[in-house]
């Protein structure tokens, strides 16, 4: 039988499958962080169980860690500090590798997994974070789980799962200059709606996807959850191998050859059936900006936002302080956030720096650049990107989730507009009353220098 990549990944991890019961699925990599684990470790201790596979469990701290002055204790948020300390204690107690704030590998969990070469084709990867779908860019089946499921994986290295349906999300053709992978995924979410993917695993396909770098692919898979999908995957190809070769250690050439051949075998069979397919032509995609309070409420930069409509649209416009029917181009912004698990990798910083270079950010604008990891930060500093940002008037911060979720005190004040490379523009996401405009790194960099939403195509 011809199978999709999802079905192959599923079948390869079945521990037990019986009709009428959920499948016991084996998990190859469990990433953990401070926010969604404390209660799971407490549960594990109450059951007097060990962590079944400490060798398949990797920890870091990212969500609530300050992006400045983090070595100075106590932190302004005492509870955040306690939570981070608890993770360190639990990792020590159970023997789990932890990349803490003193480690050169610390960073956002979805940035460091791939960087460390842990994210590989054919793996099942979970984490108590909805953006775990990021890792699907490597042809891994990766999805977010809750704290009870974190406990389940710690205890059993398995999860109880029901198969999803599959959706082929095909992007044909070629992106126009100045249009990026973030624009692709915002367009997809716009077309499907934020509930359009419920019950599905996406497989992103087509020439426009094939042409993307691994980092750009991660941006797309990262936001699969914003369309409601369980996971989003991209079949591995030479781009994947080129990325991994530098990061994975092989015993010898023979092992390397065999591993690469195995990695490349993770793909959808010719003629395999998907439950649904959507097709988008890449050359119809323009730079996208959100205007509303969920990631599906977006618009192409040359288009007008909705003028009235449903109660939801009216409420969103009211919260955002926007006028129905206006264009987003020219919309004033107050804050810029360059970061998050969606867009904080070295390529994102390079694109942003190339636009900002030699310029100043607009007066009155506060811009945070928060690299996704220390590896990204150090690389950027090696290339002198930090100087470009600092000279332009941006803040150059320490790695973490920062202003994407606003748990570490990095917040957008009420009523202010933030051009953000992150993934969610929910009400209050970046701070109570904060107004988030999601966009690509290039668009956010343009917004930083203009003090208003611009068009990244004019800077390509």
């Amino acid at each position, binding site marked *: 039988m011809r199978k999709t990549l999802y079905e192959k990944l599923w079948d390869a991890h079945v521990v037990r499958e019986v009709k009428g019961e959920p499948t016991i699925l084996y998990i190859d990599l469990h990433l953990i962080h401070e926010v969604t684990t*404390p209660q799971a470790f407490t549960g594990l201790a109450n059951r007097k169980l060990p962590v079944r596979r400490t060798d398949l469990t990797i920890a870091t701290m990212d969500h609530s860690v300050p992006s400045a002055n983090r070595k100075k204790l106590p932190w302004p948020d005492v509870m955040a500090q306690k939570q981070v300390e608890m993770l360190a204690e639990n990792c020590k107690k159970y023997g789990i590798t932890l990349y803490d704030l003193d480690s050169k590998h610390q960073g956002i969990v979805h940035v460091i997994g791939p960087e460390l070469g842990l994210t590989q084709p054919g793996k099942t990867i979970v984490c108590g974070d909805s953006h775990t779908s990021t890792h699907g860019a490597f042809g891994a089946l990766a999805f*977010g789980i809750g704290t009870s499921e974190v406990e389940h994986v710690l*205890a*059993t290295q398995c999860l109880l799962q029901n198969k999803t349906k599959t959706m082929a999300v095909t992007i044909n053709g070629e992106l126009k200059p100045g249009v990026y992978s973030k624009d692709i995924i915002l367009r997809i979410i716009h077309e499907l709606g*934020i*509930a359009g993917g419920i019950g599905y695993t996406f497989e992103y396909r087509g020439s426009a996807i094939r042409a993307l770098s691994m980092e750009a692919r991660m941006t797309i898979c990262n936001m699969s959850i914003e369309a409601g999908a369980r996971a989003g995957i991209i079949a591995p190809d030479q781009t994947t191998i080129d990325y991994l070769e530098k990061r994975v250690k092989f015993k010898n050439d023979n092992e390397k050859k065999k591993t690469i051949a195995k990695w490349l075998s993770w793909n959808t069979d010719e003629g395999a059936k998907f439950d649904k397919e959507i097709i988008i032509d890449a050359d119809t995609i323009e730079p996208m900006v959100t205007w509303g309070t969920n990631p599906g409420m977006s618009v192409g930069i040359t288009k007008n936002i909705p003028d009235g409509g449903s109660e939801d649209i009216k409420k969103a416009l009211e919260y955002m302080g926007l006028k129905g029917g206006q264009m987003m181009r020219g919309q004033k912004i107050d804050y810029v956030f360059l970061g998050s698990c969606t867009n904080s990798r070295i390529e994102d910083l390079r694109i942003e720096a190339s636009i900002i270079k030699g310029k100043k950010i607009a007066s009155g604008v506060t811009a945070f650049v928060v690299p996704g990891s220390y590896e990204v930060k150090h690389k950027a500093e090696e290339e002198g990107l930090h100087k470009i940002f600092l000279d332009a008037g941006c803040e150059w911060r320490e790695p973490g989730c920062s202003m994407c979720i606003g748990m570490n005190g990095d917040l957008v004040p009420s009523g202010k507009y933030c051009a953000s490379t992150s993934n969610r523009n929910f009400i209050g996401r970046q701070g109570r009353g904060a107004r988030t405009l999601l966009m690509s790194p290039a668009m956010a960099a343009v917004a930083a220098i203009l003090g208003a939403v611009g068009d990244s195509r004019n800077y390509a």
Partner: protein
Amino acid sequence: MKSSQFKDLTSALAPLMRDNVDTDQIIPARFLTATDKKGFGKRLFMDLRYEEDGKTPKPDFVLNQKKYKGAKILLAHENFGCGSSREHAPWAIIGAGFNAIIAISFADIFRNNSAKNGLLLVELPKKIIDMMHADVERNPKEKASINLEKQTCAWKGQAHIFAINPFVKKCLVEGLDDIGYTLSFANDIRAFEHRQ
């Protein structure tokens, strides 16, 4: 170790007539630094419920209205619980005294998290949900009766059948502990690890 069971219930409804209620609205991220499962109930819908001072109730919000006090069922709309994987969302909902949510649809991870905590999610067609919202607006005292065994939600004398995953139903009815369940197949897990 038993997990939380769902007991059949008859209760008035607290209506939340909006689509895409995300987990940031259910429980804002600034409250996620807690390290136990308790205390989230008073933070449920924090920013919808209170003014910026965090104390002054917004009179329009459903949980601040006397007529809906004591409701154990939340009546939502489409795609409830979208967004992050935080299990703090069902902890907050249960902590505030709710045992079930009735809606048109729920987000994927929220659905899993709810099942693990004994919070029953009842999915009914839009037509029925819209009718229930209209009915509740007219008469806040109207009660729904949920029978999990029969998979029915009775409303104004009519029993609406809802679908539920059979294993989730079993867990909710019996309080079956799914870690214990998985560990009962430890031999299969070991065999799988050997094959790797």
